[in-house]
């Protein structure tokens, strides 16, 4: 099996965060008997070999569609999920396996903000108490040691009021004793930011932190983020599905698809001249708010596939508008194509009587097979060839042979090229087009 491999090695830098071939796999819950019958483990390949680094004061945008693993990367950085393999370095220190008191100390320096500010705040806790809560948790490394004393309470109160002022949550004295329910969405997100910033972290992971906010409020929160970056040299991992927002604030962009980074590099270059077909597709679908510039788009087909059995070779190949014969075509791509073909009565004609039903096809690696009536086998081979004429050119070229064996039709694919990362014009791309 020739899977994607990493050839671009990390050089030692002043990076504050470095992920090295990070993998996070989640087990799929299955009935006991099924688990026994199945050899090997069934896992969701949420993150499957991700490497990148962030320098201090940099904003890295991690962009992708839902289910691509971008949030899992963010959670792994804060160690909210356990990495399956690979390593995470923070400020030169390997934090992959950190636990206990050391992990707690680390969390002071890496904070995370989630999409829904309402769900992130305890409805029974006042804003002031919520923002000051991290200080109480980390009191052993922070501030005066006499927890519970009056001075300690006053010290926290002052820190909280300062933090509120910092993020523009004003008038801070009035808002201090309010509950989350009394605040607007933008105010709540500011409160969440104040709570994350009160420990003076070095790295802030922002997971879709502005996606739920109204356009007008979103602009304000983004400006706040840029302002904090300038004043405190704060570093961000900015996770979003919105390339337009990412363009505005990110220095570097990483595009993720199904657990892999397909393109990563300086934001300016990627937006000016995207290389990976997936990046091109994502940029193309952003609507332009100008009715005079409507254009027909070349859209990728279908939707993001299942991460339990990601496609072979390049994971984007079944949907890619620029796909080659060597990108990773395999048996199930043929079965999917045939399914689509048979579902269109105009194209299918009587194909279904010879090649159907689709459930009878078996797809295993590079070999798709259909067991049929011995008298029908020859006809089925002929018909398979006829149907393949209509297949995408790249898939057609990837078919090594269509043959028969006794009563079985066999469609065999060539093995694909090994997918490597290449340096292209200042960025790293994982695509055969540039290899």
């Amino acid at each position, binding site marked *: 099996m020739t899977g994607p491999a990493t050839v671009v090695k990390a050089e030692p830098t002043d990076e504050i965060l470095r992920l090295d071939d990070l993998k996070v796999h989640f087990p799929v819950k299955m009935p006991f008997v099924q688990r026994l019958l199945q050899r090997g483990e069934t896992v969701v390949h949420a993150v499957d070999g991700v490497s990148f680094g962030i320098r201090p004061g940099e904003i890295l945008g991690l962009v992708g569609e839902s289910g691509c693993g971008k949030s899992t990367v963010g959670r792994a950085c804060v160690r909210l999920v356990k990495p399956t393999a690979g390593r995470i370095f923070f400020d030169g220190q390997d934090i992959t396996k950190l636990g206990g008191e050391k992990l707690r100390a680390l969390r002071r320096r890496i904070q995370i903000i989630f999409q829904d500010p309402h769900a992130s705040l305890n409805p029974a806790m006042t804003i002031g108490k919520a923002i000051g809560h991290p200080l109480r948790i980390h009191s052993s490394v922070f501030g005066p040691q006499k927890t519970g004393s009056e001075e300690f309470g006053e010290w926290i109160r002052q820190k909280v009021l300062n933090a509120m002022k910092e993020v523009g949550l004003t008038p801070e004295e009035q808002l201090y004793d309010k509950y989350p329910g009394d605040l*607007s969405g*933008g105010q709540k997100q500011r409160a969440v930011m104040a709570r994350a910033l009160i420990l003076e972290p070095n790295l802030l992971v922002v997971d879709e932190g502005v996606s739920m906010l109204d356009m007008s409020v*979103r602009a304000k929160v983004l400006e706040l983020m840029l302002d904090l970056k300038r004043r405190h040299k704060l570093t961000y991992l900015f996770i979003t*599905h919105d390339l*337009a927002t990412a363009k505005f604030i990110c220095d570097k962009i990483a595009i993720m698809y199904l657990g892999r980074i397909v393109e990563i590099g300086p934001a300016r270059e990627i937006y000016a001249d995207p290389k990976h077909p997936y990046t091109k597709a994502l940029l193309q679908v952003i*609507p*332009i708010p100008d009715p005079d510039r409507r254009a027909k788009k070349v859209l990728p087909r279908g939707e993001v596939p299942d991460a339990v059995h990601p496609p072979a070779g390049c994971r984007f190949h079944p949907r890619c508008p620029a796909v080659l014969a060597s990108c990773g075509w395999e048996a199930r791509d043929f079965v999917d194509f045939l399914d689509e073909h048979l579902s269109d009565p105009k194209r299918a004609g009587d194909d279904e009587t010879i090649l159907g039903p689709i459930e009878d096809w078996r797809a295993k690696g590079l070999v798709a097979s259909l067991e049929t009536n011995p008298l029908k086998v020859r006809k089925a081979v002929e018909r398979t060839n006829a149907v393949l004429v209509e297949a995408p050119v790249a898939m057609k070229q990837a078919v090594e042979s269509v043959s028969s064996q006794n009563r079985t039709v066999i469609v065999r694919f060539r093995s694909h090229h090994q997918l490597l990362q290449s340096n292209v014009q200042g960025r790293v791309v994982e695509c055969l087009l540039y290899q």
Partner: protein
Amino acid sequence: MSGKIFFRGRDLTQLSNQMYRRIRGEEIALIFQDPMTRLNPLMRIQDHFLEEIHAHESVSSTEARTRAREALVSMGIHETRIRNYPHEFSGGMRQRIMIALALVLKPSLLIADEPTTSLDVIVEAQILEILQDLKEAYHMSLLLITHNLGIVAEVCDRVAVLYAGKLVELGSVRDIFHKPLHPYTQGLLASVIHLETKELHSIEGSPPDLIAPPSGCRFHPRCSYAQPICTERIPPLVEFEPGHFAACHFGDKFL
């Protein structure tokens, strides 16, 4: 509730519930934001179609089934999947099923309420393409409800802008995007973040409380052009140029 709703010259507010049921689905169909919560998780896709067809038309089960299959296939979903349950489909497929359900009775008006908001960007573009094709193929009218101005620019012919329960501007998509007359429309357009955004803009303040809406023009507390008259008198919807309406006392200033 007051006012009137005219559909093909008939005031819908005067209809009895029974008569209204002949309009819903048959004449005016509706698709929603989240297709998962709109499909019954305990019903096969086929039964969604059959229930709808039988509620409106007296046709045989065979014919109803044929039509359901056709509607599904026209949305690019294999007919064998008609016996599947909603959870067995992806988000984009579910929304296509919703559209197929809306179209099976051949309505003349389709209301799409944030039809792509819960979908990924590429699937969103796919669904918008389908809606545009349908509009042309069936000569169907589309009322697209959305907060996304980019989608409006790409799909719509005419645009109505609502603020705090009131229509503030109405015009062709070009009027609205190139020559917005209402300060709220202007603020809204300026706050869109797109690939060519150089500077962020936002509208000061937040939407008003509708229990006690502001006097006069409801936008006046957030409007940088507000004058004393704006707090006193409700601006009427005025046609400033052919087909381009705005409810602003100073709309002519922006012509």
